[in-house]
């Protein structure tokens, strides 16, 4: 789960990272009032779950209350890559003498948390990684020991070879960031930039955190961090129904059991010239309720012109799956054709059951995909 800068900063602050104060406003008046509270100058920063806010005009320095008013007006309601700005963070502006990048993520190869840091802060780190990878320092962190003093200070001194005071501040920030990462079950945590003011004090002035969806059970409070406005309504419904669903732009609705097979199905739709309307994994069960939920989610998209079930029965028996599909579709008023491909244990029995319905049977994945594209028109 991706969270907003202001929420990430709240987490960072609770782990002792030096984050400047700041509050969120949802209206211009509120933004102006907050600026008044905090004292000028301030930054007004759009809170949307996408990158490139600065380039899109979503982050502004405000020296006067007039600036605050004007910029809050411009930013609130702004569309940044399809995300409408509904909140702005009003935060004290600090003088920047130097900028650093500090980030942590899960490194699949070492199977550890990887710390990355660079003196090229404040810019897109992916770009730095591409253009000048030698400017990014890395340290994998042994989960048994955490980020040790000498590892953190070593990184700090590489970033700031001539100023041990700053190196120590960077090291302390990295150790706190690691603690925040682990204890919040993050999958990504970035401070970009970590800055020093001219007097040599460090501040984390931007923050990005992704939380591990699998670990939400350990953090009941984090559910409140979810910004429902940022979520596509169909994706929200799928999440609530515990279905893996991603909205796409096509017209062939796909219901598949298993994530890999679902991706392969989408790919095959494309291969045959069609456009998948979604990714959807209905999982291993033949529960009619789950199928109903999945169909409702897919059919909420008016673009969907045909529906494709691709089910590899595996251990679940195909006749059971067929019954589930028949029960689900029978209970609903569906106006688009439905192609069903069932393979696995008892597949013939399953297809026999389908033969008595309006559902279009298919023997293979290829056949099913081609039929669905054809029926979608």
């Amino acid at each position: 789960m991706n969270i907003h800068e202001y929420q990430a900063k709240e987490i960072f602050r609770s782990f002792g990272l030096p984050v400047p104060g700041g509050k969120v406003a949802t209206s211009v008046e509120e933004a102006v009032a907050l600026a008044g509270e905090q004292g000028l100058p301030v930054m007004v920063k759009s809170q949307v779950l996408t990158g490139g806010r600065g380039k899109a005009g979503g982050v502004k320095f405000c020296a006067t209350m007039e600036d605050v008013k004007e910029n809050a007006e411009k930013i609130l309601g702004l569309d940044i890559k399809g995300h409408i700005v509904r909140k702005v963070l009003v935060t004290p502006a600090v003088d920047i003498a130097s900028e650093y990048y500090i980030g942590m993520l899960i490194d699949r190869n070492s199977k550890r948390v990887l710390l990355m840091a660079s003196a090229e802060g404040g810019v897109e780190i992916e770009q730095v990684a591409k253009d000048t990878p030698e400017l990014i320092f890395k340290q994998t962190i042994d989960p048994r020991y955490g980020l040790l003093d000498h590892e953190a200070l070593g990184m700090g001194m590489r970033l700031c070879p001539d100023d041990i005071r700053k190196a120590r501040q960077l090291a302390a920030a990295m150790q706190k960031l690691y603690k925040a990462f682990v204890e919040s079950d993050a999958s990504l945590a970035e401070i970009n930039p970590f800055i020093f003011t001219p007097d040599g004090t460090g501040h984390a002035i931007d923050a990005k955190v992704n939380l591990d969806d699998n670990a939400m059970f350990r953090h009941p409070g984090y559910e409140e961090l979810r910004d429902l406005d940022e979520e596509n309504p169909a994706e929200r419904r799928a999440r609530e129904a515990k279905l893996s669903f991603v909205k796409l732009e096509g017209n062939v609705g796909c219901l598949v059991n298993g994530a890999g097979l679902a991706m392969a199905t989408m790919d095959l739709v494309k291969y045959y010239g069609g456009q998948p309307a979604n990714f959807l994994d209905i999982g291993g069960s033949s529960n009619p309720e789950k199928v109903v939920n999945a169909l409702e989610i897919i059919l909420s998209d008016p673009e969907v012109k045909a529906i494709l079930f691709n089910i590899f029965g595996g251990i679940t028996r195909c006749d059971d799956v067929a019954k589930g599909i028949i029960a689900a579709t029978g209970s609903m008023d569906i106006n688009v054709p439905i192609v069903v491909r069932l393979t696995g244990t008892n597949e013939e029995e399953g297809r026999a059951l389908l033969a008595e319905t309006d559902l279009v049977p298919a023997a293979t994945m290829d056949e099913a995909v081609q039929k669905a594209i054809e029926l979608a028109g």
Partner: protein
Amino acid sequence: MAIFVDENTRVVVQGITGRDGGFHAREMMAYGTQVVAGVTPGRGGQVFDDKVPVYDTVAEAVREHDANTSVIFVPPFGAAGAICEAADAGCKLIVCITEGVPTLDMVKVMPYIQERGARLIGPNCPGLLAPGIAKLGILPTSIVKEGPVGLVSRSGTLTYEVVYQLTAAGLGQTTCLGIGGDPVIGTTFMDAIMAFNEDPRTEAFVMIGEIGGDAEEKAAAYIKEHVKKPVVSFIAGQTAPPGKRMGHAGAIVSGGSGTAAEKKKALEAAGIPVADRPMDIVPRLQEIWKR
């Protein structure tokens, strides 16, 4: 022979008294797998299906039945603990089927099992099926057949699809292995490929990848350098949009990397044919495999 299992594989099922654990324990036993004990804390002393004694701890089960392998069906919050328990009790192969395990739990588990010399498969995987030898996990036995092909995959049902086609084409398997779709997993493509490469019965193999990470690229580099056996691959997720998790926690294109296109390019550069459709896998394998 197969990879990772043989006729001495003696299995403990953790979570045997649960719905999934019980169902799949029966399926494994029906296939002839030596399921020697079950474990559910608080259920020690019971007997599962009048056949398999249940213990409170893996340590007791291992001690009483000389078990060396565990297959885990427990809820996500208990999975990391169950893996550690199995490793600590001396299991050398641990297959964790559980989906939804927090990634940092797995990060913490890795050195623990490594210190104990255990191999982990999964989590969030269908496990392993060595036709004619043993089944450790949830792969359907009806679609497999003994034979010379190895198969390793990050996926579940997509694996079944490919196994189904191999079997239909008369190509039996040495081992079908689902390594799981999570970012941090025990046994990786690389581990499986090294094992298939060394397994004398495996004559050719198939690698089913998907978007996210660079395990396929690493495997490609290894194959190019070290593997003489024919290998064919398939990558799912060409149409996946960036930044979105496609079901599997590990199936995500992030920061422009981990795309299907990159992987396909790396594999082809290593001389490994990449099938466009799942149904092209068998024909592509037959093209390069001079039997």
